């Protein structure tokens, strides 16, 4: 990996990592702390940057793990990869925060209510424009799994939007 430096390669990832941390923690201050910890972690690993195949995927994975740790420490449980099929029960903290923020749009609240892994994949694909391969690498799952989770997320949004619009 040539010409890699913190300033030119790692620091430009900050906003992307912030959006990811924000979608997981749902809290700007916590998300900013997560990004700061993530970047410091990447910086500490600088002697191994040459060996890391995809530094961005490494940073995304670190950021996601840190954000999930924040949720666990705060007692705000998130769903494991095995539990993500529960379509109709979004995370309690997300649900309660959604109720207090009525100005948030229907779609935003639907997206916030998705299980974490679906939400993260939808963000990486639809907002950050990542390929299935890049997402699979960052989340350490197969491309097929990425497509399965994304398909579930999009279908859920589509169905809910249809129902809400009919009502």
């Amino acid at each position, binding site marked *: 990996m040539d010409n890699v430096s913190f300033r030119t390669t790692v620091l430009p990832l900050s906003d992307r990592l912030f959006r990811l941390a924000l979608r997981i923690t749902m809290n700007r201050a916590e998300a900013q702390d997560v990004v700061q910890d993530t970047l410091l972690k990447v910086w500490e690993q600088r002697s191994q940057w040459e060996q890391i195949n995809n530094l961005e995927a490494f940073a995304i994975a670190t950021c996601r793990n840190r954000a999930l740790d924040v949720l666990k420490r705060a007692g705000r449980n998130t769903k494991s990869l095995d539990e993500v099929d529960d379509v109709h029960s979004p995370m309690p903290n997300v649900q309660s925060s959604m109720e207090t923020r009525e100005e948030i749009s229907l*779609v935003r609240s639907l997206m916030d209510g998705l299980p974490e892994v679906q939400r993260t994949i939808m963000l990486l694909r639809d907002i950050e424009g990542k390929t299935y391969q890049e997402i699979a690498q960052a989340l350490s799952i197969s491309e097929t799994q990425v497509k399965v989770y994304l398909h579930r997320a999009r279908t859920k949004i589509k169905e809910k939007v249809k129902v809400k619009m009919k009502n």
Partner: protein
Amino acid sequence: MDYKYIEQLLERYWECQTTLEEEAILRNFFRQADVPASLLRYRQLFNEEDKMADEHLSEDFADKMLRMIGEESTQPHSRGVKARRLTVVRRMRPFYRAAGLVAILLTIGNAAHQSFIDEEETTASTQMAETIPADSIEGIKAGSPDKQSAALAPQPLDTLDAFTR
């Protein structure tokens, strides 16, 4: 206008069969104001994703991170010395200040010196007044100019002797 292509893309989007480029076409389509009623319900999804993409960290975050790892800031003007053009008046300002200070010190010194001289003169006059004999003062009070001058004028010793004889 025929929206069949968009509808087909949208169907493939839900099935996760679209490429990133095709998804960008959909996103651009839903950004326009003129969206047919049949597709209007999906516009909010793409618009919301646009809003999410606009979330950013605070402006000073990058500088803070660089300081934490011991690198220089990305904004040199925020930490470095700023160059300023100096006019002649501004350049001479220290000399004006020094001259002003000297003038103030001289004024205070002169005033102190003057008050010291005045005090000395006052003391001398008081001492002189104390040495004048009491009867001379009585003479002054009586209003006799001869007596006054006689009392105040210094008398030669031989003249004094003639009087006593």
